């Protein structure tokens, strides 16, 4: 049904780069926000100001990056579960 429609009528061209649902917006903003935390300049600021610290016997920067990576994966899994 849906495919037949596209051959008969013009496309609407609503942007495919912007989410079209609330869950989509949450997933995209959460992912981009977390990704910014592990990109310059934030990651370099973290290294300069907090890099000498230790967490659970490991360097702070190592734990910080690992924690954000797992949160990013969590966002992707949440998106699948919400059918984004």
């Amino acid at each position: 049904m849906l495919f037949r429609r596209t051959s008969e009528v013009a496309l609407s061209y609503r942007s495919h780069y912007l989410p079209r649902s609330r869950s989509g917006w949450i997933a995209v903003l959460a992912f981009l926000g977390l990704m910014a935390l592990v990109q310059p300049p934030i990651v370099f600021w973290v290294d300069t100001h907090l890099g000498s610290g230790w967490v659970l016997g490991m360097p702070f920067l190592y734990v910080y990056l690992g924690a954000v990576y797992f949160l990013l994966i969590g966002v992707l899994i949440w998106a699948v579960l919400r059918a984004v």
Partner: protein
Amino acid sequence: MESWVVATGLVFLYILVTIVLGFLANRAMSLDLEDFFLYGRKAGFVVLYLTVVATYHSAFAFLGSGGFFYRHGIGFWEAGTWTVLTGAITYTLGVRIWALGKRFSYITPADMLADFYESEAVRVVTAMVSVLFTILYIQVQAQGLGYIISVASGDRISFEMGTLLLMIVAGGYLMAGGLRAVYWTDVIQGIWMYVAVWAGALVLSYRLFGGPLALWKRVAAERPDLLSLPGPEGFFTPGMWIGMSVALSFGIILQPHIMIRYYTAVSGRTIKWLGATTPIFLMTLYIPAAMVGLGGAIILPDLAIPDQIFPELLVRYAPAWLTGLILAGATAAAMSTLDSILHANMTVLTRDVYQRYIARDREPAHYVWVGRGIVLGLLVIGYLLSVRTLGFLVTLVTLSGAGALQLLPGILGVCYPTRRPFTKAGVLAGIGVGLTVLYVTLVIVPNALGIHGAIWSLAANFATCIAVSAFTKPSSRETIVRIHGAIEDYVYGAGDAGLEEALRSTPRSLPSTPHAADSV
């Protein structure tokens, strides 16, 4: 029993397992193009997951990543960003590539681009970029294999003989069972490499330091420069950090041996789960690599070739059985990438060159046999390249990582509908300018202003593509509506169910004749 016998024996045991799997795949195979090239588009989550991660992580991840930590320190933990980005790209872009492949029977990346841009020139350029920038990885993986077997045997098996032997095995099971053999062996290879690298790193860290936490303390006390950015040699600048994130996520995904895997999934939901969960495997493999590299910098600080840190530590400090297990894992990492690149190049050359321009409308079995012949030719070329290092090849390998990245504007133009679609002239001009800028910013003025050449080239590519597309003629409205309509309906319509319904109601086919626009 001597340690080299144990180590070599375990590597050969692993090789025997792959040969048996190749034989079984051959018995399950039918002489059908989609079966031989695309696993019949029936790959489920587990098989697809393990083949993607095993293919993504090559000998570099196994041997080279330890060397990177050894030389540049904790900054290489940045690897997590590109593995997570890889997952997100698979989730968003991969599912669109899968849907179009299923809907219109695409087999290669060039099929998709040529169809949308109505251009045989786009097909040829895409095929050339696909092959040129991955064929050299055959050489890299082959050299890794030769090195591994010579280390395991204590140089009793020469580098050249080891390379030849393992290339014949990988090419053999690929020719016997097609992509099915590659997938089945990748399942074993993916599990083996993951277990091996973790086991090796943990055993070494306990033997040499008393555990991972004690390892970190020793590194902080003796080499604090390895625990801060931008690293001892100042490698991880902000520009390099962002550049590597882009080049090693988009750049690897757009290589044909990864893109073709998207076509093989049984459903779009499989691709989404793949995107959400593959970063777990890809990223956590770098945790033991950090232990190996940083610990190695303390134990063996004056190693001439940092990439050899893992095997050097194993040979000196690990029991023979563990060394064998891990070197078999390294073999798995190299072979799983080698077989996938061989398969991708075979598919591109058979489909985009032979079937399109040399012998059309033959029986599927004919193309399967031609594909096998191409694999044989690639093996010969790969072997010759691996035992002889030529100057221009070093340059091409430098370019390889970001070469496939130049297909990004064209692929986004297909998969993301916009009011002003990119044109074939825009895409071709963008690729040309992008490759030129890539050469300049990686070879002549490496990473100018501290920014990775991949970023420079991609920016130039996009700017050119957008500018040229604004003044040139797009594809026909019928084609744009057909393909962008399919994307719109799949992503925002009925999804997998709607796609299946569409396939039942309309035949799947590609345009069978060269595009008229190119002959004008």
